């Protein structure tokens, strides 16, 4: 199997040069961002456990829909 930058480089839908450095940075960030997501989910669960329910965030679309 090819490693990631290679698959994205041969994807015909992509007409921009994504930039090697920009891809590498994202792959490195992916790990950190994933930790962030897990932590947030975990934290929400803990808060829910102690009854501190946070209201679900509104769909950002909604407030822009009205005329």
């Amino acid at each position, binding site marked *: 199997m090819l*490693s*990631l*930058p290679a698959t994205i480089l041969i994807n015909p839908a992509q007409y*921009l040069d994504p930039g090697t*450095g920009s891809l590498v940075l994202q792959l490195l*960030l*992916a790990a950190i961002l994933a930790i962030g997501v897990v932590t947030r989910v975990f934290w929400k669960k803990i808060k829910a456990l102690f009854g501190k329910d946070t209201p679900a965030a509104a769909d950002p*679309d909604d407030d822009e829909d009205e005329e």
Partner: protein
Amino acid sequence: MRSSQHTPASFRDPSGFLFTRDGILYRQVNQVYQADYDLLMQSGLYERLLKSKKIIPHQEVDCPPAVPEIAYRVLQPERVEFISYPYEWSFSQLKDAALLTLSIQKTALEYGLSLKDASAYNIQFRNGRPLLIDTLSFAKYREGEPWAAYRQFCQHFLAPLALMAWTDARLSQWLRISIDGVPLELASRLLPLRTRIQPGLMIHIHLHASAQKRYAGQAEAAQKETGSRRMDKAALAALVDNLSGAVSRLRWEPKGTEWGDYYDSTNYTQAAFEHKRELIRSFLEQAGPRQVWDLGANTGAFSRIAAGMGILTVASDVDEAAVEKNYREVKKAKEKNLLPLVIDLTNPSPAIGWGNRERDSFLGRGPADLVMALALVHHLAISNNVPLPDLAAFFASLGEWLIIEFVPKEDSQVQRLLASRADIFPTYTREGFEAAFGEVFSLEEAVPIRESRRTLYLMKKR
């Protein structure tokens, strides 16, 4: 066969292109893009974006394609009446365009698609708000792949916004120099040191610039180093959220304006201001324009008369702060017909890009039906030394009708301009002005503004 004309800005993406035929704008979708286009339309993403007014509506039409051999579909998008460019937007306009792009990317991921580009030129302002005009910007999301448009997003949006917020708002003009956004290593060097401790800017600009430098021409080495690392969808969504946070945290407050206290200073009493408003309204009714350009519009006090009458009004000013205030008012009041833009009339946007044809010049986007030049003529004639006949010819090239205010030398604003220089303008008098403009315009109305020394004219091109 009827001739169709390829739109000069539409050539980079092989997915399709824009063309005009008989004055109507079409978009050809090419066969190579068939699967992605169908996915956009069938996944529900297009409907969703349409409902939230984030994408330009289009119809699939039966019109023959411009290049049939490679065509899959022909679309007729709704037309955007006035095209503007990111180097003409104020800080909040560029920021709103950036946030729209990210919000679209976030939604696209939910539907199994991803933006394959994130160009600021794909966003236009219509009815007072930004929208995506490039229907072919989406591609099927491929599990594990990073965002191919990440670099473009940072160059087109994040870097200029950061420079405007942290260094100087006038640096938006870098977008005019560099067609694919601000190079990140340049942004990194121009930004103050303290932006290196702002997490968003530290990562997406400074670290990003270093990564670009380190891996330039090193694709193979990069592959070895990253091995089988992947970026799953949750991480990609988190990246988009992270960028969104970085953009949202950037702020710029317009401190006063170049003309800040203009209306309060001596030249206008309340009665004069009201009289001027009344005259403009009546002149507009007389001329009945569909599109007005208010040049030197400041924060848009008089542009709003035209916009309020349902006329699409481009309100340009050289002053970033005035345009920013104007746009904030458009947003606050949800005004639909007003487009504030940063334009330096003494050096208006040129045609730029490939073959000098990718982005049209400001003048090339005219003519308007009516031009308003209020409290402007002295700035051009005296500060910029433009002879009155040249000024008249300039305005005549911009529109059929002209509402223009003559500000005489006795006016304190003109006195201020003349205070530091020799008066080399012997013809700058009401008579000289009427003679010069009378050559190219017929003077339909000339009304002295009450409680002032100024005169307001309605002129029609001969």
